[in-house]
């Protein structure tokens, strides 16, 4: 009894674990997994790198302080009218300062003031881990300690496949949604057409019925007037008036049938369209372009870059080239704004990658088809050669 109970417990646990793993590979779970991974990476990297960064920053700050002091002292001591000497002294000091700064820059210093802002804030680290696993690699923020570098390598080895998994997954979902929306829009279009046709049909029907009523009324009045008339008349009326009424009803039926047919036709065409619906390549490209343009406008407004520059940034980022020469938030002195921008940038990137994956997913079939076609052409050519 007890054993069985235990076993059932074990199986339940196993099932639970399985379900959890399965969940992590579902759409939502994968999303959460990637973001969680990046967050975890952010925490770790921040913990590893920020002390080092602070150290470097403090060194630079100290050097600057020293330079300022020297400048002041020279001003104080040296006759300020002796311009040449003053300048020489200060220039030497600035040169020294430059050497120190460059040493610091080689170790990751990027001009952020000690105590005011830092590269390795949480958001900065998050963006860093994101750039690692998406292989963008801006490089404006990079691990500088050995431990950080090792961690980066490990992080990338695990993270890049995870990211790819996530991208394909999310791209799939998004492609489905996109396709669905596209289909919906098409259906809407056809519905509109259908509605139009219906309306027209209804109008015709109404007119028809009007005609029919009229004829009937006519008939009746005729009959009423000729009630006293002979039976022959009746026959006549039947013949003369019955024909038009019959014709009217016929017309009515015919019209109805036609309307029905029209509807059917439209429906069929809609069905067919929906079944072999494939988003055209141009639309896919347009979506991507729209995203790029939207992003570039965003950064254009924020950063005061020119449009080309911000477009360049977006493009370089989304193709995962990631030069890092342009980077949002770098120009802002205010730390809070910079952090905000980093967050928005990272989400822009993440969503952009997903969108890119979606576009690949959508375009893939068409592209593959085209490539196969081309390949076929070439193959046939080669065959010809062989025959020759």
């Amino acid at each position, binding site marked *: 009894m007890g054993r069985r109970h235990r076993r059932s417990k074990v199986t339940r646990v196993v099932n639970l674990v399985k379900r959890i793993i399965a969940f992590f590979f579902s759409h939502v779970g994968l999303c959460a997994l990637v973001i969680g991974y990046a967050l975890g990476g952010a925490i770790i990297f921040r913990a590893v790198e920020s002390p080092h960064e602070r150290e470097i920053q403090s060194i630079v700050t100290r050097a600057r302080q020293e330079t300022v002091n020297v400048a*002041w002292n020279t001003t104080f001591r040296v006759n300020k009218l002796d311009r040449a000497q003053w300048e020489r002294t200060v220039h030497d000091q600035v040169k020294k300062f430059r050497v120190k700064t460059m040493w610091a820059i080689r170790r990751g210093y990027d001009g952020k003031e000690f105590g005011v802002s830092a590269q390795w804030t949480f958001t900065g680290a998050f963006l860093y881990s994101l750039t690692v696993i998406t292989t963008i690699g801006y490089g404006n923020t990079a691990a*500088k300690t050995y431990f950080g570098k090792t961690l980066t390598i490990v992080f990338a080895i695990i993270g890049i496949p995870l990211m790819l998994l996530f991208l394909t997954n999310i791209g799939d979902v998004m492609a489905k949604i996109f396709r669905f929306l596209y289909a919906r829009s098409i259906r809407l279009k056809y519905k509109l057409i259908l509605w139009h046709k219906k309306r027209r049909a209804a109008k015709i029907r109404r007119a028809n019925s009007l005609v029919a009523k009229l004829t009937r009324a006519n008939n009746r009045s005729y009959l009423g007037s000729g009630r006293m008339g002979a039976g022959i008349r009746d026959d006549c009326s039947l013949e003369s008036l019955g024909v038009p009424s019959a014709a009217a009803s016929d017309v009515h039926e015919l019209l109805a049938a036609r309307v029905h047919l029209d509807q059917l036709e439209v429906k069929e065409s809609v069905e067919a369209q929906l079944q072999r619906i494939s988003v055209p390549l141009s639309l896919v490209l347009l979506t991507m372009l729209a995203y790029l343009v939207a992003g570039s406008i965003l950064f254009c407004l924020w950063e005061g870059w020119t449009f080309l520059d911000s477009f360049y940034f977006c493009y370089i980022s989304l193709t995962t080239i990631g030069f890092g*020469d342009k980077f949002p938030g770098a120009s802002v002195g205010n730390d809070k704004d910079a952090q905000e921008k980093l967050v928005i940038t990272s989400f822009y990137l993440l969503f952009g990658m997903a969108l890119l994956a979606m576009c690949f997913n959508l375009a893939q079939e068409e592209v593959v088809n085209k490539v196969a076609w081309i390949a076929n052409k070439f193959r046939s050519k080669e065959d010809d050669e062989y025959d020759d």
Partner: protein
Amino acid sequence: MRDEVRSLCLRVTIISKKLAGFVISHVGLCALVALYAVLGAFMFRAIEYPAEMQFQGHIINDTWLVVQKLYNYISEREVIEEHEVKRLAHELLKDYEHKLVHAVNFEGYDENDDFHPTYQWTFSGALLYSITVFTTIGYGHICPKTSWGRGLTILYANFGIPLMLLCLANIAESLAQVFTFVYFKVCCAYCRWQQKRKRIRRAALSFRFHPNAPVNIRRAQSARSNQRYGAVRRHQSLTRRNPSVKYPALSDTKSVRSLRSLNRYEQQKFDTQSLPGRRKISQIRTMPNDSVLLRNTVRRGPSGRTARYVDHSASPPIDADTMKFLSASERKNRLCAISKCCQKQPTRRDADLYGRGGLPVRYLNHNDDDRSAIIEMKQLNTPGPGNSLGPNVNSIPRTKQRRGKRTSPFEESGGSMLSEGAQTSQGRVHDIERDSRLPQITVSDNEKEEQARTELDEWDDDEYGDELKYGTHGPLHPGYTQTEPPTPQHHGVPVAITSSSGSHGVFVPKQPSMDSSLSRRIRDECRSYRSDRSDEMSIRSLRRAGNSYHREKMPVSVGIITVILFIAGGAILFAVWEDWNVFDGAYYSFITLSTIGFGDIVPGQSLDEGSQEKLIVCALYLLFGMALIAMCFKLMQDDVVQKARWLGQKLGIIVKEESSDSESEFDDDLVLEEDDEDDVLSEEKTDQDKRTVSSSSSKRDEEEMRSLAKVEKNGNVRRNWRI
């Protein structure tokens, strides 16, 4: 005249077609990418270099600017307050810092630049830049500063990235081929060597135990074991040799394509053979007494390969009658087939034959074919030959197998000799089975097949060399063979011969003296034989891999190790060059090859002397690394996908999508068209498809086969042979 024009036109069109094909081919694609990179380098250099000339070296000015600004401020003020001055100094210095950061990170500023500014946008720098663009590495240490440069970069990336992906996929394929070839040839040399050694040892043992065995001790042994066939043989490496028999089901996995290619191969051999048999024959003649003896002597023959011939002949001893028959037919042509069929012929061969020289090597192969062909003939022509044919049949298939197995044939043939009656039926069955199986054969890796074949050849040489030693002993014990001259074989052999020799003149110089059906059969036989062989090959590899479904597949670990080695090599290279420590080098290599490309460490930055070459080497390292990684993905892909699927199924009792997800992931990894395969078989198929040496060759083979069929219908034998 008109003809000339036409031919000229034809040639031109052909050339143009070839050009188009070439562009799409591996080399063409590589060249295209290289050209694209160089073009990009020129373009970006033209755009960016003038701009860089203007701003490069601005740090000196900036330094002076800071000082002057400060001085001006001080001189302007009536009253100098300390904190005011300090604040200003701070601000100025901060600004200066930012400039410095940008200059160092993105303009390649260096301490030495004050004296002689170095420019980033040299040709090599621009080349590296364009490569980092279309590989999506994007270091960013060299980046365009002008808006023109930026716009063009976007355009450049637009076309460059797909091109690069295409090229990578293409290169990865061929690299994978080369790599697998090298791996199986070089890396597995050791295991092969060991196997061989084992075999030799065993052979020696057997010899000791059966000193009387005239042909080959091994054979005798095998003969004995043959009777107990299935059970006894199984163990040891012997099993390897006779895989088709034991695991008939496996034969299904043979690849038609490989067969075909083999076929072609064989045919070539066939054609090229000239008078190959004579030599052997002559030698055989030297030992006129016993066929067995002859055989042995043959082994001793001029080339190691002649040994093969002996092997063939080693099968059932032949009667004098058949021999004569054979000799006559043989003379007319090098149609070895006949000679082979009658393994005994050699004994019969006259002086004339003796006199002629030939290429024994080819001949050997021929022999195999012929023999097999003859056997088939028997089956087909004399549908009900009964037991008499049996032994022959039996022996022949075995011999065929022998090739594949490299060594085993002896045993089998010997076995047939001993247990002719009992086994005839068996052998037949085998044959039939094989034939019937042929159509079902799936495509296997061509490349590997060929590889294997080459290996085989080498092996064969070695082995035969080894056997030679043993073989020489054979003659001492002539009695053995004589004791069991299987009479039934005579019947079988003559049938075959009659068909061939009877139809054609005795001294016809051309080989194809057989009638169409015969040749056909030979063909078939060859095919089946080949299939057998391939079968064995695959099985062998199977064994090697230890997994029945992972034939000739690279283990994942090898791929990973290769990448790691490459990274380590890069680390050491850059560490030596750039005075980085090794870890930095490894970090750089990893970041580069994963296309992350931070660009915080880039070679060519620290030194200006020779940094240009370094940039170029860096670019090459980069490109090759990308190709290597793509290759490794290609090699590991199937394995990984399979494993992922397995994992997914394990978990996926609940979740179905997972496996497909992971699969798609890897597909995505490789970027280009990867089909989803459902079962292992199909997967393998496609995999092999991709790896096959070239579709063209296989296609040609197919055509060959088709034409063969046609020819056969027409009864045009000759063409058949020539194709």
